């Protein structure tokens, strides 16, 4: 197990460095002088020189990259061009909101997805099954931002049950969590269903039935435990899709998380802020995948031997 963990972590490190490098190259070949972007069009030419010097923009790209990475490891992601604040601080401030939203969305995904998948499998090829699976496909095909707008119109404006946007209490997170979690709930439901159906074909299920166990005990005691293995790991991997969706959800519901900051950074053309938020988000995704891998290895000993 120890070797397995070390191996997996060692695989993730080069990926993370590659991500940072590609991001750095993409954002540092942007046309337009960073100083002009930062200070506006009407800056004096000699000041541009001073700032180029101060920001050490004339060093070779790889040197600047190394300096950036060294800083990022200490939590220093540079200073935002437009807000004139440390990017690290802005990330630390917005990150809790994104985490909160993602956790609520994941709860929605689990609490709806697993029972729906279980139910669909038990009642497979009935009307209920089809309805659940149709609903889950709908969740995947629904544009997140549009679903959010519709819910705002219906529940906030027409029915006045929930606040339109904001992030002050749990009530404010109900709509965003449902909008964001729906797609993941669909994935979880489909996976639970197909795994359960697969497991139910096994010999040990037949044995369990043969020894006279009740069908409900067979499903919950024997089948579900095995079927949940891949589902548990997919939840860790869904960090990626939740973060991608969080960008949209946050901009609609006005939650000042990482996604909203990234979108603002783009519209303000604020490179360090954009770079910091995207790098941080992607690092989260890589960490999520790593955890998924380790979890899988922990739950299923066969995976560890490779």
């Amino acid at each position, binding site marked *: 197990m120890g070797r397995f963990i070390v191996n997996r972590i060692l695989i993730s490190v080069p*990926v993370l460095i590659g991500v940072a490098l590609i991001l750095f190259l993409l*954002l540092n070949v942007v046309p337009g002088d960073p100083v002009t972007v930062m200070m506006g069009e009407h800056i004096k030419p000699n000041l541009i020189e001073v700032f180029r010097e101060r920001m050490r923009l004339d060093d070779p790209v790889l040197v600047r990259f190394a300096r950036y990475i060294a800083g990022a490891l200490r939590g220093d992601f540079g200073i935002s061009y437009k807000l004139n604040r440390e990017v690290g601080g802005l990330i630390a401030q917005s990150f809790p909101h994104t985490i909160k939203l993602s956790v609520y969305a994941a709860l929605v995904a689990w609490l709806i997805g697993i029972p729906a998948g279980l139910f669909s499998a038990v009642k497979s090829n009935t009307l209920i099954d*089809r309805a659940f699976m149709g609903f889950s496909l*709908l969740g995947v095909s629904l*544009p997140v931002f*549009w679903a959010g707008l519709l819910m705002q119109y219906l529940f906030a*404006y027409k029915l006045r049950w929930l606040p339109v946007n904001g992030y002050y209490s749990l009530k404010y997170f109900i709509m965003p969590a449902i909008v964001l979690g729906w797609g993941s709930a669909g994935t979880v439901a489909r996976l639970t269903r197909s795994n359960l159906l697969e497991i139910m074909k096994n010999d040990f299920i037949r044995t369990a039935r043969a020894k006279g166990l009740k069908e409900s005990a067979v499903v919950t005691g024997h089948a579900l435990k095995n079927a949940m293995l891949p589902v548990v790991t997919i939840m860790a991997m869904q960090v990626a899709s939740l973060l991608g969706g969080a960008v949209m959800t946050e901009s609609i519901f006005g939650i000042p998380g990482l996604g909203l900051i990234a979108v603002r950074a783009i519209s303000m053309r604020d490179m360090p802020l954009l770079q910091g938020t995207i790098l941080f988000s992607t690092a989260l995704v890589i960490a999520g995948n790593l955890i998924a891998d380790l979890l899988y290895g922990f739950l299923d000993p066969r995976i560890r031997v490779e």
Partner: protein
Amino acid sequence: MSFTEEGLSPAAGVPNFEEDDIERLDDESVFARFLWMFRKNKLAAFSLLVICVIMLAALTVPLYTPYDPNKPSLGERFAPPSPAHWAGCDDLGRDQFVRLIYGARISIMIGLLPTTLSMIIGTALGLVAGYFGGSADFWIMRLADIVLAFPSLLLAMVVSYTLGGGIMSIFVALSVVSWAGTARVIRAQTMSLREKEFVEAARSIGVRPCVIIFRHILPNCVPNLIVLFTLNIPGAIMNESSLSFLGVGAAPPSTSWGLMIFRYKTYLMSYPWLAIAPGLAILVFVLAFNFLGDGIRDAMDPYMKD
């Protein structure tokens, strides 16, 4: 709760495959499998019909409509849906239905072109990595790992930021984002095909590697490529509408469904149909592609079902 024999059939919404169906598949051409699938799977056939109708409508729209999608007619601002204007008029009195169909052109283009481009890149890299192995394989796959580590929407945001926004940068951004998945699948398939007797036979009589790849391996990847193609399109359309909604995608005067939702969300409370219609269009189009893709996947390889 009970698991009956019929309760164990593979997936909801798709027909049950009988044993002889599956055996028959092994000898049939791709085209014959298509015909067979559409006869068996009405949902996929209907989805294909919907897609064709939307595409035809979008291609021929200047021929049959009296309205100009971009010409304001201020007397008809916010006209509700009526026989003259099927989906009403927008804030400048432009016919919403006609604008939806013009928006379909962008969505179709975005769905098809970057997907095609990314498939070509992904297939080429996957073939090289899978066939030659070694260091080419190593570097291509590490690059794919890195690309796949990014949440795709965030990476697309960064790329289109670098390229300055607009339709062209969306093309590139979406191609950059989605080649890696294709490369992985094709690489795996190439590696297994490389060991097959017919490839070994070709190699033993001295056929050059590039001929083996194009004559013997690529044609065997075609079923997979068709499935990947159909299932990649909805993702591309979805990402485009998200990017346009965030303001980093299509820019006026060109219309896209995402851009329309972005524009009309201001009027959501007073004229909700304006923002609802384009979202519905995205939903129908994406759902149709998802159904079609699922159907094709089941037809190409009944064993591979989720």
